[in-house]
């Protein structure tokens, strides 16, 4: 689908480079000796990464985990960063077949007003959280940039770090949001297979795959301090999607060396209105392999593991390679008071439905305590707004 008139087009070779590598990737070509060679080398090339993501690496998962652990220790020590997401609106104009916010789904829609947002932020801040990730459904009409900017300004008062996970916008809009207090931007590409992408995103501006791909670059051009990347594993071939995600981050970091890059690694989760979407199976072992390969390839990148994964998986992976966890999570709209306190919200219209079901419902304190027990150092904030 072509760019819509309001969508900015930038000059960049990053997309072509990522796609070329992905299209040339034949995961079946790699052998165990390629994997062993990749693990022996002190630094990991693109070719090595391809070997580590191949099925030939499966028997070497423990060796990969050990190497990933060592790299994590060198770059992050024992620290693990904690944050919580805050969904401020769930209106959406897109028809993504796998998503709970899908415009055709009959769910309770809500857009928090300023007072509601502030109340949610107060409750979250009181729990001890210092970094918040603001999310919206993808509706530039219902949640326009001015509205998101207002949310950033409010969040700045309560939190020391503010991330955004919103629909892609133009460079100047990212610049505006940066001025409003946003520090970093995460965009899920969902799948890097653009043909498959069109079959999963049936209507709405999200169908424009290249505009979404270039979002992180526009965010960096607009002055954002960091950017996050992700495929949603289970939509397509996870090995190719993982390769493309890592290279997307790698090439952009090369082009913008000051930019802090991070990777997320969500697997698709059931939604409240589960449609008839058959996802590809990506096992926990597969996910662990992806995360280890990410860490060995980009030892300096932050890796976030969300509550889509179980507490057991998250406690394990954070000892190997993950450096950032969400905690005290709700993916609904306006329900933090209910979830964080004993308050009962009787007005059903005051709460919007959730995007997906979570697997790890631990509170901030529980995650904090578990990390401490496991010998890790939870960090609520490591950032100074200058």
């Amino acid at each position, binding site marked *: 689908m072509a760019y819509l008139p309001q969508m900015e087009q930038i000059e960049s070779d990053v997309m072509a480079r990522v796609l070329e590598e992905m299209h040339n990737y034949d995961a079946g070509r790699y052998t165990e000796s390629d994997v062993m060679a990749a693990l022996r080398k002190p630094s990991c090339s693109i070719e090595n990464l391809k070997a580590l993501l191949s099925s030939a690496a499966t028997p070497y998962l423990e060796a990969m985990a050990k190497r990933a652990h060592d790299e994590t*220790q*060198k*770059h*992050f*020590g*024992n*620290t693990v960063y904690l944050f919580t997401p805050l969904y401020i609106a769930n209106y959406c104009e897109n028809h993504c077949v796998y998503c709970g916010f899908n415009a055709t789904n009959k769910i309770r829609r809500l857009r928090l007003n300023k007072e509601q947002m502030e109340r949610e932020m107060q409750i979250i801040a009181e729990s*001890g959280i*210092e970094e918040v990730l603001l999310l919206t459904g993808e509706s530039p009409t219902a949640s326009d940039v001015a509205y998101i900017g207002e949310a950033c300004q409010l969040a700045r008062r309560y939190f*020391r770090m503010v991330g955004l996970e919103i629909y892609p916008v133009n460079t100047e809009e990212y610049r505006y949001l940066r001025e409003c207090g946003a520090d970093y931007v995460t965009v899920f590409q969902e799948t890097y297979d653009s043909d498959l992408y069109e079959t999963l995103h049936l209507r709405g501006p999200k169908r424009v795959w290249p505009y979404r791909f270039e979002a992180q670059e526009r965010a960096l051009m607009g002055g954002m301090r*960091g950017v996050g990347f992700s495929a949603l594993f289970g939509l397509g071939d996870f090995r190719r999607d993982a390769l493309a995600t890592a290279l997307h981050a790698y090439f952009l*970091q090369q082009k913008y*060396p*000051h*930019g*802090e*890059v991070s990777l997320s690694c969500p697997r698709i989760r059931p939604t409240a209105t589960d449609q008839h979407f058959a996802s590809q199976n990506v096992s926990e072992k597969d996910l662990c392999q992806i995360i280890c390969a990410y860490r060995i390839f980009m030892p*300096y990148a932050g890796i976030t593991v969300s509550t889509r994964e179980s507490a057991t998986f998250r406690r394990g992976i954070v000892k190997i390679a993950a450096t950032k966890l969400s905690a005290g999570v709700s993916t609904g709209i306006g329900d933090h008071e209910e979830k964080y306190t004993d308050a009962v919200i009787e007005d059903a219209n005051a709460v919007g439905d959730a995007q997906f079901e979570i697997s790890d419902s631990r509170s901030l304190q529980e995650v904090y305590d578990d990390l*401490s027990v496991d010998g890790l*150092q939870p*960090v*609520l*904030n*490591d*950032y*100074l707004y*200058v």
Partner: protein
Amino acid sequence: MEKTGSNRTNNQVLSTEDFLEIGGHRLQSRFILGSGKYSPNLIEAAVHQGGAEMVTVAVRRANTKDSENIMNYIPDGVILLPNTSGARDAREAVRIARLARELGCGDFIKIEIMKDSKYLLPDNAETVKATEVLAQEGFVVMPYMYPDLYIARDLVSAGAATIMPLAAPIGSNRGLVTGEFIQILVEEIDLPVIVDAGIGSPSQACEAMEMGCAAVMANTAIATAGHIATMASAFGKAIAAGRQAYLSGLGRVLQRGACASDPLTGFLYND
């Protein structure tokens, strides 16, 4: 200010006579401990067992909440060395330094300016600019730098109290990769040369001290050790041993092969 090179005396070999003076403070220990990558609960034990008298603290970890504030874990009596990590240019570093002073961290400041999120290499040019501004404001400026002689001289002119060249990429634990260049700084720069990043083991720290460096800073090597406090102790001892070896005057080191017992010029003296 001490001179690290030519003015050693036999008396200094005795440890009580030997101290490192920075910003009007005399330090007996030449071990500077980093605190960023492990639990704050372990800082006190590491300080005590390592004998460190100076501890670095990232201002960005100095939180508003008491429970999270790393400052609460720094034992009394040690000198705080706040750093400007997170700064991407001189302007941001200056701002963080002023914040540190406002927070009550004192006048010491370690400048760290990084424009590359991958290797975290210091930006030397911006570091000189920040040093100039902060030295004029009365800070005791300790700049982290890539070991470059001209930049080191500029830092001296800008009013730095020490220079802190990296031994290897931060966190790499690779040891004195830039050793030859650090040696040049030790010979040429009339300020304490403190090796900052990349030291991975006590033996590497000892080697840096044998070279004539004034002190060694370590963080990752200790943070990632099996037992943090005892590794801090090992570093403290190795640094003291290296210093003593330097003051004692190392014996002759042959670069390659053995020394021929028959001199090559013997024929000149045959008659």
